[in-house]
């Protein structure tokens, strides 16, 4: 897994659905190994932006390039985790992960793929449930498996679309910690784009937060998040700098909403 030059560039990006402009004038870059949070209210097009980076949608105008190459469609250099743990329900959990292993290592035998998939599951704390089917797992466990599958692609980019949005607070916290641990633990680090509408989650996880406004969706502000890692929730939530940044972001979001209300 070489991450050399694995940065993302988005230039003058526009995306429209018929007459409706969803995204307009997006300029954004994410450098190699960086953890970027895309933060915005619903309707700001943050998920659409992620789908454009993933290559699941094609831009109306502008350019997305990953690792120096323009994105022309989905590719196994960009792993994606969706909000709704989209494992294939007819495959066992280990077979779901083994599909990703097969793409990263096409020459491996079936048994070797399963073994690696099993090891990947163990890394996210699912060593015991590989032979089960997704419907036998809780939501949190399914999302762990989806993360294991994304990691098994061994791709330099990791794109996550509100991956913990459907989880209860305890599972959400566990998976946030797991994600940071896995991201920091791999060398070189993956370039992560993480979509969320939760300010605290963005500040806990990311190196930088890009705040998005609505109608049309665009980046209204960017904030570096410089808190030392590893970050502890309890310490962070007492930190004055954390609260200051949180206020600033909330103000930026409110200002955008107000501007729209006045215009309407």
């Amino acid at each position: 897994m070489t991450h050399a030059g694995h940065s993302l560039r988005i230039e003058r990006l526009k995306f429209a659905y018929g007459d409706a402009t969803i995204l307009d004038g997006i300029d954004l870059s994410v450098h190699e190994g960086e953890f970027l949070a895309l933060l915005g209210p619903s309707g700001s097009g943050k998920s659409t932006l992620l789908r454009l980076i993933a290559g699941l949608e094609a831009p109306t105008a502008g350019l997305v390039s990953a690792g120096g190459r323009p994105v022309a469609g989905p590719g196994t250099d960009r792993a994606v985790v969706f909000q709704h743990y989209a494992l294939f329900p007819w495959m066992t959990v280990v077979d779901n992960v083994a599909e990703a292993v097969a793409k990263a290592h096409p020459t491996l035998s079936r048994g070797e793929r399963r073994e690696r998939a099993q090891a990947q599951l163990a890394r996210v704390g699912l060593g015991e449930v590989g032979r089960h089917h997704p419907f036998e797992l809780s939501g949190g466990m399914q999302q762990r498996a989806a993360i294991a599958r994304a990691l098994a692609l061994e791709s330099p980019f990791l794109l996550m679309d509100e991956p913990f949005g459907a989880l209860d607070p305890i599972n959400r916290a566990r998976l946030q910690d797991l994600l940071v641990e896995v991201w920091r633990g791999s060398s070189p680090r993956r370039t992560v784009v993480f979509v969320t509408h939760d300010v605290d989650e963005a500040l806990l996880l990311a190196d930088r937060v890009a705040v998005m406004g609505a109608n049309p969706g665009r980046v209204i502000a960017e904030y570096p998040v410089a808190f030392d890692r590893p970050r502890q929730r309890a310490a962070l939530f007492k930190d004055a700098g954390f609260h200051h940044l949180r206020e600033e972001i909330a103000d930026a979001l409110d200002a955008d909403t107000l501007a729209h209300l006045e215009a309407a």
Partner: protein
Amino acid sequence: MSAEQKALELPSTVRGDTGGGARRRLFADFAWEPWALAAALLVAWQITGNALAGEGNPLLPPPAVVLRALWDSLPELGRGTVSSFLILVPGYGFALVLGVALGLLAGTTPRLARAFFPFAKVAAPIPPTVFIPYAIAVLPTFHLSATFVVFLGAFWPIFQNAASGALSVEGRHRDNARVLGFSHFEYLRKVVFPASLPHIFSGMAVGLGFSFILLTVAELFGANAGLGRFVQYYADFADYPRMVAGILYTGAVTWAAMSLLDKLRHRALFWLR
């Protein structure tokens, strides 16, 4: 983590119910209604049969007589079943393979969809029974004509259901297949086919029903063996006990085939429960 694992194991321990409770529930669940209806019908049959019984050949032979005829005809009915299945299995099997393959392809390839769907709209509603005289006249053997007609009857429902299954694959499965870099063939085999199985099984059930109808109708025309032929043959001799026995036997065979398909469906679609 350990809490989650416990949560996972919980259902199996809950499911393992203890003896007394399970037995009581089994008794409460026992459905006596179908048996009551069957008994009522049997009594009505016996009474009507007795009332109609004149001298010699009864128009409605009473149950005991039919049962006797059924018992006596079992070897002949067995041979008839084999003969019928030699038509049914290849005709239905070929329809299944071709219907699923073409349906999934048409449902995932826009160009094939444009080619197939308007044609299917016109061709599918033609009652396949109208092909029987033509097939028998044109094709060299009866076996081939009957197989062709069975194929035709089963093909359209399977094709149409497979195609609509392929069209309704959930967006998230499609997205995941693309993100994982699946080739079109991998996508068909690992995603579209399993995702379409609920639809395919509906098509298979409709197709199997049609197959039995067409098989027996075709056998009324030109067969020298088979289930439909058995009924037709004894009708010609006005041997109503054997004829009714043949009808009941055909019903039982159809029911068995449908139940088998249902069991298969239940097994294959475990992930929907």
